[in-house]
């Protein structure tokens, strides 16, 4: 009787695992890990929730290329536009197509800052045999695709003078497999603090946080540099002066 009960219990447990694996296989089997490579992990001082660009006119230009299509560039421009609008700037966006600007930039007053964004795929790696093994083992053996991207940022004044530039590089690893997802889900639930979690949309959130923070910092540095190079003369369309602090002679 006891042996039968143990055997029955084992079967129930096995059935539970099969059900659990089936549930995992039905959807949540991709785990994306984000690693900042260079520049993105630097701290940023400027607070994107403050009016850092009050009264300024910004043109955000997102250049489509081999890696980023025009529709994605448009989406990027809209998001970056919102970032600067939330900081008090008047923002126009431009997604050049076939080398031509989507806006007539000759009309009206020139922008105070022109933010150019372009993306490059630096590296992509994925193993074919591993994918085959993953399919054969019902994702118990996981597969992965790894890629590194660079987001090049240049910020110029209305005359085209380069005020700031940087290349923000990130690496993403997409694991495909119920097992990887399950192990990380358990670690997220039991061991990792919220800021260290990996599953869900943590990678997208972390990258967005780093990218928008660095972009805000670069633009703010460019703004102050433009003021200094203009010897603090007011901009053609006057805005507020920067908050000036620090020691003086």
């Amino acid at each position, binding site marked *: 009787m006891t042996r039968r009960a143990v055997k029955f219990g084992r079967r129930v447990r096995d059935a539970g695992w099969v059900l659990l694996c089936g549930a995992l296989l039905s959807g949540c089997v991709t785990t994306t890990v984000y*690693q900042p490579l260079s520049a993105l992990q630097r701290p940023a001082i400027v607070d994107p929730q403050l009016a850092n660009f009050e009264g300024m006119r910004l043109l955000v230009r997102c250049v489509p290329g081999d890696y980023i299509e025009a529709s994605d560039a448009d989406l990027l421009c809209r998001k970056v536009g919102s970032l600067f609008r939330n900081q008090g700037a008047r923002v126009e966006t431009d997604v050049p197509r076939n080398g031509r600007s989507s806006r007539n930039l000759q009309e009206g007053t020139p922008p105070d800052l022109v933010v150019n964004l372009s993306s490059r795929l630096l590296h992509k790696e994925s193993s074919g045999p591993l994918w085959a093994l993953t399919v054969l083992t019902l994702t118990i053996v996981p597969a992965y695709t790894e890629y590194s991207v660079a987001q090049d940022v240049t910020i110029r004044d209305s005359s085209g003078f380069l005020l700031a530039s940087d290349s923000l590089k990130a690496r993403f690893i997409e*694991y495909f497999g119920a097992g990887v997802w399950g*192990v990380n889900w358990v670690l997220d639930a039991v061991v990792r603090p919220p800021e260290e979690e990996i599953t869900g949309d943590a990678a997208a959130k*972390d990258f967005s946080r780093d990218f928008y923070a660095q972009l805000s910092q670069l633009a703010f540095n460019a703004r*102050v540099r433009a003021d200094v190079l203009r010897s603090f003369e007011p901009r053609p369309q006057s805005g507020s002066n920067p908050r000036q602090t*620090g*020691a003086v002679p």
Partner: protein
Amino acid sequence: METLLVFLLVQLSVSEGRPYDPAPGIWHDKSEARNLDCSRMSQQRAHELHPGEIPAPLARLANQESEALVCTRRIMRNGERPERDELILDSLRESVGEIAEVASALGPGKLTWHVDAFYPQPEVAAKISVAARTELAEQGRRVSDKVPVLAAGDIVVLGRMAPKDAYPLACKRYFAQRALGENDAFLGIMLIDERETQLHAGLCLNGEWRWLR
């Protein structure tokens, strides 16, 4: 139980059983990964830079370009010193090098160079000054350790002014009070706004202040 153990071992060995991979995962947490500066380069170049850690590319794969991800640990970990100080000091050599180069070009001849840095933290200001003096000396300039000093009354007045007015006026006062002469150049390096992470500079020559960057 055996099934679970095998399952976990497979995950560890295949998916994230890559202890040399610096990406966050089972072996590394996110904060650890943020203390690394990483770049991609050819395996050949990586082998030349780190011969003990990265093997040379295989001869039979000479036609295939293989890459390596090379990471170096930052000298100061995130959070070990204030964020702005970290950013300023991390790029100090480049920023001071650029400033000294521009200043040297604008102040030719046999001048004696005086340097001072205006930064909220005195210890960081001292590092900036020393770096700029060293850079100027390396360019063959005659550099003085002395910093021109103004009268207490001047400092009180200048302290209430915005930097755009304070530095040019200070320059005039240095010259008027003979703290600086015709054969002296004063290079001021400063932070203008508390929210920025870059250094600016101005040059004082014959009582005339000029913003450099």
